[in-house]
């Protein structure tokens, strides 16, 4: 009995027990193997247990066993598809937590965001990351599409991958768009009103689509609930499904394409061989992915802390007041720009439909068999042109472009926008010296002799304001007698009332004026 209790034997047994657990958990990798993995050494057993995982584990079965060395070159994919998926998972994770605090009703939605910001530890960070991730996902999806276009990866057998990609682009935009409404502030409400009203342009069923989305002629409780359910149930489910199909095609069927110069034309055999060399998923690709994920998380966290990205929140939605300069979310500006160019039906429905059809049919329209950039000059030129047009249209979609506003109104709106913060809102409260000032008459120098450090920001504001007015006078938009006035009154404890007024003689001799009254509280904080 005692004899059998020797130490070596016990160690062996313990090792075996642990090894077995490890194999059960990792779907086939023993302790020895794990050790080798961490050190980047070759497999310890035969057949290669690292491949076995791909058949026995559910999570790994969708991942490829290996990629070809050529397709993992950084400048070929820029890991754009990977990062798009990364952002999607970030959105899922942060979104699930945000759901705990959010109530989808017009009475409560805005309040629940305020509560998230002032009552939930890390609430603001969570919201900022969710917003940043959403914007990044739209950007990365678009760039990823552009890269697959430029590397010609949509051709032949990969045309179905491309098609599912186009569907994903749509899902991504609508995910982002439907989330836009949820905070129920003025920005959200009017951006979505503008956005859905574009659907109205569609002939025959435009009104019906609009009604279906909004749940009523105007967005209200029904519309909010619909957007919420789209955002948290339908679209994420659709995204998961289509991403799975999209990725399955890549990982299990075609692999990622090789760069064209390794595949097409006279490629030296040794290059070809090197390109086709297998890079195993476990451990090489997996390590890289974990590495990239930690990079992505670090960048997101830095973005919302050090780089100060914050999800905007304006005042609560008010269907009765359309703020000046309302605009759709930036990824729809191109559509707004197009709508300014011409007929609502042509620009808002027919052309966008054609764009989508071209995207869907691209693999069939472009019959050129080559993938190399140099062998498809027309396709590349058209692609670059489309990007330029997209940027131009987006610029034209800005509310400042092509929509005439009275010059006085434009100036005051730029100094102190109805929503969000302008130069006026950014002034430190202490510098708002009481008084009534004629802005474009006196040079703003030494305006606050009573303040220890003067009021540089206040003076800069005056300079900016008077420059704008004088510019308008020089351009002839306003008559030379125009007076710009700022009145600052003490209104309540820590509250000042500021009146911006521009007065000018009209053509009929009567004096005309435009004014805006703003109340500023000392604690309002700055965005």
């Amino acid at each position, binding site marked *: 009995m005692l004899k059998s209790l020797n130490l070596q034997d016990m160690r062996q047994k313990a090792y075996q027990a642990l090894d077995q657990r490890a194999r059960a958990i990792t779907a086939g990798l023993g302790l020895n193997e794990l050790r080798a993995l961490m050190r980047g050494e070759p497999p310890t057993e035969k057949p290669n247990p690292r491949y076995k995982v791909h058949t026995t584990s559910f999570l790994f079965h969708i991942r490829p066993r290996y990629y070809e060395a050529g397709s993992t070159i950084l400048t070929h994919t820029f890991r754009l598809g990977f990062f798009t998926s990364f952002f999607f998972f970030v959105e899922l994770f942060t979104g699930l937590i945000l759901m705990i605090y959010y109530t989808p009703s017009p009475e409560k939605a805005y309040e629940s965001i305020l509560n998230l*910001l002032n009552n939930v530890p890390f609430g603001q960070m969570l919201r900022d990351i969710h917003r940043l991730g959403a914007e990044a996902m739209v950007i990365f999806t678009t760039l990823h599409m552009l890269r697959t276009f430029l590397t010609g990866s949509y051709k032949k057998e990969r045309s179905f991958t491309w098609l599912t990609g186009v569907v994903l682009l749509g899902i991504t935009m609508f995910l982002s768009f439907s989330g836009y409404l949820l905070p129920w502030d003025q920005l959200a409400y009017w951006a979505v009103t503008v956005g859905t009203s574009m659907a109205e342009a569609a002939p025959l069923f435009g009104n019906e689509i609009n009604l279906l989305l909004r749940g009523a002629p105007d967005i209200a409780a029904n519309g909010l609930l619909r957007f919420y359910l789209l955002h948290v149930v339908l679209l994420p489910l659709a995204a998961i499904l289509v991403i799975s199909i999209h990725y399955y095609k890549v990982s299990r069927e075609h692999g990622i394409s090789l760069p064209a110069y390794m595949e097409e034309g006279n490629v030296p055999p040794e290059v070809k061989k090197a390109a086709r060399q297998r890079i195993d998923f476990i451990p090489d690709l997996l*390590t890289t992915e974990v590495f990239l994920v*930690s*990079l992505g998380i670090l960048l997101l966290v830095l973005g919302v802390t050090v780089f100060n990205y914050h999800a905007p929140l304006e005042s609560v939605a008010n269907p009765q007041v359309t703020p000046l300069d309302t605009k759709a979310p930036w990824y729809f500006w191109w559509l707004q720009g197009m709508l300014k160019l011409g007929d609502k039906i042509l620009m808002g429905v027919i052309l966008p439909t054609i764009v989508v059809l071209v995207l869907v049919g691209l693999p069939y329209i472009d019959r050129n068999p080559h993938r190399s950039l140099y062998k498809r000059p027309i396709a590349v030129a058209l692609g670059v042109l489309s990007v330029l047009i997209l940027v131009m249209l987006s610029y034209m979609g800005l509310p400042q472009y092509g929509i005439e506003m009275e010059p006085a109104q434009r100036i005051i709106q730029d100094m102190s926008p109805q929503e969000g913060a302008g130069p006026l809102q950014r002034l430190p409260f202490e510098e708002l010296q009481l008084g009534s000032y004629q802005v474009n008459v006196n040079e703003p120098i030494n305006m606050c002799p009573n303040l220890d450090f003067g009021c540089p920001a206040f003076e800069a504001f005056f300079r900016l304001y008077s420059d704008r007015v004088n510019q308008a006078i020089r351009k002839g938009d306003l008559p030379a007698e125009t007076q710009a006035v700022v009145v600052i009154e003490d*209104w309540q404890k*820590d*509250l000042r009332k500021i009146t911006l007024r521009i007065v000018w003689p009209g053509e009929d001799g009567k004096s005309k004026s435009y004014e805006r009254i703003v109340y500023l*509280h000392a*604690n*309002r904080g700055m965005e």
Partner: protein
Amino acid sequence: MNRINLQILLGTIMVLATSVVVLFYGLNEEKRMAEAEEAQRGRAIEQGAALFEAQCSRCHGTQGTGIPGLCPPLNDRYFFDQRMKDVGWSGTLEDYIVATVSSGRLASTRPQLYPGQGTPAMPAFSDHFGGPLREDQIRTIAAFITNWSETAIAIEVPPTPSGPVVGTDITKELPEGDPAAGEALATTLGCVACHIAAPTGPVWLAKDGEPGVGSHAATRITQPDYTGKATTPEQYLFESIVNPNIFVVSGFASGVMPQSYANSLTDQDMANLIAYLLTLK
């Protein structure tokens, strides 16, 4: 060092860096949340100020000073220190304001002092009861009003006039008036809210070729549609103040100007007011 090792090393460093950033962010969370709450309150007060100006100032005065004979002040010591006890309200002042503003007041609780518009003395403002404001907007107004709490201690509004009141007999012999005292009175009584600051009533100051109230006093009584009994400018002003509905200036509604001045002003007050108004040619 091979690539895997390098990636593991860098990955670990980045995870640590992320943790450090998140940790430091977390240490600041209490402060950040407190500041966010302050900022939200600040913004609520800003919005409340604008809404108060638009909806309430015509009765309660631009600065909440109230209008004697019409509406109570909301910025004085009585309102903040005593009113809750007097009406037996057990909730907070903020709730009292929200409740009052939401449903309005059918009848004034102090009809002699603050009759308001009559019935209702104050209209309901909540959109649930047909008013123009949403619940959250009413809350911002309440935030604005309660922000007077610190300055309210210093503000004491005498509710009742001192001395015998002037009455409605416009032929009464009045003492010598002092225009400066009249001007001060017009401000404390809240006349300026309707007559100077906002054109709820006829504008007193001469503007754009239109003469001031001092000249109108002489011309109104000669108009063919004049329905009052005054024969001199002084009497016209006297009559307009104590019995505003006997003749309503065209373009204005009858019943807007408070009708209680006959019972709240003294002879001297009336003389001072008239003297002041006559200077506004």
